[in-house]
Each structure stands twice: as C-alpha cells, then as structure tokens.
C-alpha cells in the first residue's frame, strides 16, 4: 500500500491519455455487463427457485400452436400435480404500437401457481368477479399512470374481437406487487381473463397457449412431465413438458445461439481493449524508463519495478472496469423499464461481477506484463544515459 501513491502518480502523469484509456475500459466493461445479462437471459441463467417447481406444457411443434382446454382436467388428475393454470399470449399495445404491453390471458389457477405475483385476497376476488377485469404490475401502472377502476383499452396485435375490432376494453381491478426474487419485468405485466379473451376473440375457441403446472413435489418433475406428455401422445396436439426455467431457456434459444454471438462480441471488444490499452501502457512505460531507472538506482528491486508497472495496469483496468460494471448494473433495470417489459434482462449478479473482476485483473496483467518486463530488465546505466 505504501507504493500506491507511486502507481497513482504514474497514472496521473498524462491525464488526458489516462482518461481516454479509462473511457475505453469503461465502455468495454459496460458492454460486457450488458451483453452478459443478455447471454444469461437467453441461456436460462435467470432461473428462479419457483421456476424449477413448475412445469410448462406447450405444443411439441411450436409455441404458437394452441392446446385444447380440455387437457386441463386430465393434467390435474395426474398424481403429483398440485394445480394447473393456463396462459395465452395477447400481444397488446397501449394507444400506440411503440407502447408495448407484456399482456397475457390467464385463468385463476395460473395466478395461484405464481408466487412471484403478490395479490391480496381482495384483488383476487375483484379479478374473479370482473369479466373484463385486468391485473397490472406496479411498474406498468406507474408508467402509464393507471389507477384501480380505470378503463384501459389495449390493442391486440394478433387477436381481433368477434366484430373485427382489435381494441379490447379492460377495467383495472388490481395493481399487484412482486416477490423480491421475481424475474426482471414481472412488475411490467398485464393479466386479463382467459374466458373474456376466449369468448371474445375471432380465432379458435377453447384453446390455451400453454399450461403451467404446480407440482406437489419438485422431485417428481420428470415423472409428472412424462405422464403429461403421454396424455397427448400420437394426437394432433402432442405436448412437450419441461420446467418453467427450461421452457424460458428453450423459448429464448429459438432466436439462435445468443450465447455464442454474445461471447464473440465480448471477445472482439476485449481483444480491441487489450491492443489499445497494451499500446498505451507500452508508451507510458517507454516515456518513464529514466524514472524507473532512478527508482532502481535508489534501491528498488527489479521485482518491485515489475510489480509497480503491473499494479498500474491492473489498477487502471479495475477502476475503469468497475465503473463500467456499475453503469451496466444501473442500465440493465432501466432498459427493462424503458422497453415496457419487452427487454427483460436479469440484474447483474455475483457471478457477473466475479467474471468481470477476473477479466479486469487478467487483462491488466496481459497489457502490463510486457512493459513491466521491460522496466524490470532495464540496465540502470544504459537507461540513465538514454541508451
């Protein structure tokens, strides 16, 4: 620690150069944080405990293919099933197509199977008693200034009503809170009655998008999943049952191997960062060769000089990297809010920070090692003579 002022002094020698280098490091780690969140979101890394205690039953062929509503009672009869709810994608927008609302038609059981959605008994009752009732997340309600009792029209981008009108009127009957471990964006959702949706839409009736099955024993997930899929084997609506976490992951994978794409971008960013910062460090040390020679003259060992230069590089990476990661931590939830729930990225967690810090130290060593070796190996008499 007593050498820290020497390291800081070396970094403040050319303030503009250090500042520009820091900005590039901040940008790289901001990108790393954001892209890591994207990768985790698309790889199912945003798993929740409740997500492993629930099964999702969807069409084996496509998420867009519906399942018969009659299946609900048969699934409920399987031993190990606590409750069965279902959900349909509604695809609503509010007033303007850019005001996307994460909206789903659900039955009462669905709400009972989702502990992340915190409802009071009054809200449950109000939802059950109101045919065009809607439950909205707190963040969504705040975003549009919605109040309980307010009439809200949503335009479905997929489902027309019987008269061909795409606008569906709703009455807000409750504004729900979310559990602390709820995935990002849960407080941005809009739930409407499946019955209201089923009876009112122009397309097929008695069809649900997918079922959500609450298990009485999570350890029985495999057995129950096989039993559910067996119900529809060799029918025109074969199912594929998996845990909610796995379902979310496979849904995301339909968009491509995001993990690979993100890793490639991050690798390219860091490769550029290594070249840029490495060049800066080399230049900074080259300019200071006589000063390093003075330190060695005074009795600093070659290892001390090596450590000083490495510490300088690592400190620069840590300062820039931590600022970048802090910015990413702030930007991730802001993106979710700004997109109205369209972009749901998990908050940066311990793993992201550990990976980030490890990368900062590794890159610091990589960019510092060659200049540091040069400083370590310099011959005092040659360096002082400017040779």
């Amino acid at each position, binding site marked *: 620690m007593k050498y820290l002022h020497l390291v800081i002094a070396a970094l403040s020698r050319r303030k503009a150069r250090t500042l520009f280098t820091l900005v590039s490091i901040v940008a790289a780690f901001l990108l790393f944080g954001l892209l890591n969140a994207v990768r985790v979101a698309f790889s199912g890394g945003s798993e929740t405990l409740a997500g492993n205690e629930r099964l999702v039953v969807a069409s084996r062929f496509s998420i867009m293919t519906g399942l018969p509503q009659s299946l609900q009672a048969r699934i409920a009869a399987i031993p190990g099933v606590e409750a069965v709810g279902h959900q349909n994608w509604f695809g609503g927008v509010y007033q303007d197509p850019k005001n996307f609302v994460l909206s789903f038609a659900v039955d009462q059981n669905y709400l009972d199977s989702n502990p992340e959605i915190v409802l009071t008994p009054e809200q449950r009752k109000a939802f059950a008693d109101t045919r065009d009732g809607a439950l909205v997340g707190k963040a969504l309600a705040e975003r549009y200034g919605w109040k309980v009792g307010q009439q809200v029209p949503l335009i479905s981008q997929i489902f027309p009503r019987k008269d061909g009108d795409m606008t569906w009127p709703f009455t807000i009957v409750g504004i729900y809170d979310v559990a602390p471990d709820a995935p990002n964006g849960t407080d941005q959702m809009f739930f409407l009655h499946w019955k209201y949706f089923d009876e009112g839409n122009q397309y097929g009736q008695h069809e649900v998008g997918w079922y959500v099955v609450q298990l009485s024993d999570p350890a029985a997930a495999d057995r129950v999943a096989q039993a559910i899929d067996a119900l529809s084997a060799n029918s025109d609506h074969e199912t594929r049952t998996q845990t909610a976490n796995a379902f979310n992951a496979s849904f995301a994978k339909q968009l491509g191997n995001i993990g690979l794409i993100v890793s490639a971008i991050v690798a390219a960013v860091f490769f550029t960062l290594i070249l840029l910062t490495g060049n800066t460090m080399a230049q900074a040390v080259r300019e200071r060769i006589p000063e390093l020679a003075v330190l060695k003259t005074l009795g600093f060992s070659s290892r001390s000089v090596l450590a000083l230069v490495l510490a300088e590089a690592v400190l620069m990476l840590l300062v820039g990297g931590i600022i970048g990661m802090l910015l990413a931590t702030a930007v991730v939830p802001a993106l979710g809010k700004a997109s109205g729930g369209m972009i749901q990225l998990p908050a940066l967690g311990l793993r992201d920070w550990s990976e980030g810090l490890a990368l900062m130290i590794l890159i610091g060593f990589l960019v510092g090692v060659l200049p540091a070796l040069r400083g370590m190996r310099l011959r005092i*008499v040659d360096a002082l003579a400017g040779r």
Partner: protein
Amino acid sequence: MATLVEIRNVSKVYERGRQKVEVLHHVNLDIAEGDFLALMGPSGSGKTTLLNLIGGLDSPTDGSITIGGQRIDRLGEGALAKWRAANVGFVFQFYNLLPILSAQKNVELPLLLTHLSAAQRRKNAAIALELVGLADRASHKPTELSGGQQQRVAIARAIVSDPRFLVCDEPTGDLDRQSAEDVLGLLQMLNRDHGKTLIMVTHDPRAAEHARHTLHLDKGTLVEEQGLGIRD
C-alpha cells in the same frame, strides 16, 4: 581515517556490437571515510563508469571493489539493490526527480524501502529538506522549482536515508554559477559538518576546488593530482 572504498585492479570492458571497448584499465584506488574526492577527466576517460562501479550501478569486468569491508562486485542484482538503498546516496547532473511527485514525496522515495512509518518518513523528509534550505518548498513539484532548487531536493533525497557515502555525477553541470556555488557549498557542508564521504565527478575545475582531493582519469587510467588515493 579508515578506508571506505578499496578498488583493486578494476577493469571495465563494454561490448558495442562486435567491438570491445575497455573503459577502465586496471584501476587501483582507496578512498578514506569522510573524504570529499573529485574525479576529473576528459569525456570518455571513464570517470562516470568508475563512479557507477563505486555506486553499485554496474559491475566490473575484472578486479574487486570493497566498500566498508564488503565485496560489492560479488553481489547479485537483488542484493546490490539492497546494498545501494542502505549505503549510497546519488546526485545526478539532471537531478532525476520524479516530475509528478512533490519535493517532499521525491525525498521520501528512498525511505519507502525502509520499515519506517508514513509519519516517520514524512518527518525525515522534512528534516532533509530543511537541511538543504527548502522546507518551504516541500509541496512544490520539480517543474515549479529552479534548477538549483531541484538539485538541492535531489541532495535531500540522497541524504534522507543517511547513507555511508554520496556519489555525485556532474552535480553542477546543469546549473548557473551562483546555483552551482550553493550546491557545492551544501555538499561541502555535508562533508565537513556531517562527515559524509563524497565522490564527485566533474568537468569543472572550480567545482573540483571544493573537494579535499582531486584525481584525474585519462583513457581509463587514474592519474594522481594531489598525491593521495592511488595505489600502485
């Protein structure tokens, strides 16, 4: 007075590409503790090389260098660095202060290698700066000081860890007459009042007049001027 520096049959050969250049040729020299020795000679005579060998910045190709009873020519790089930190103070022609550090922090540099606390380091540096008459400039950066003042800061840095001797390479070479006189007076005071052994390389005969003895080097060989120091 006891002998501090014993140089025996020292030669130094530099390799410049394929060419070998002998800079020092079988030099023998004793320097007594408490002496103030000026080394003079034309450019390329080997005086800075000899100073570097005495200061432990370089190793001889041949011969032995014993300082305070220790053979420094046998020390490895790490041990030599420790030896320099404990025994030698350096004063250069161009001061060689770290431009980003204040005078106080520059003077504290050698103390970072000791076990002194931060408060003790600050105190010792302040005493050294006071000794060279720059207590009021402690917070100034080198660029905010004149050449003479910078050299006095360099002298404070050289003496702050109380080394056995100082090696000074053209300490007045970059200074005007008045500043040079001030610096030489300061070196004289350190030798006379504090008993520091000084070995100074200089081109300037007026600077050499401040030393107790002067030796001349010519083509890598010592030539005695005032009858002291050289051994046959």
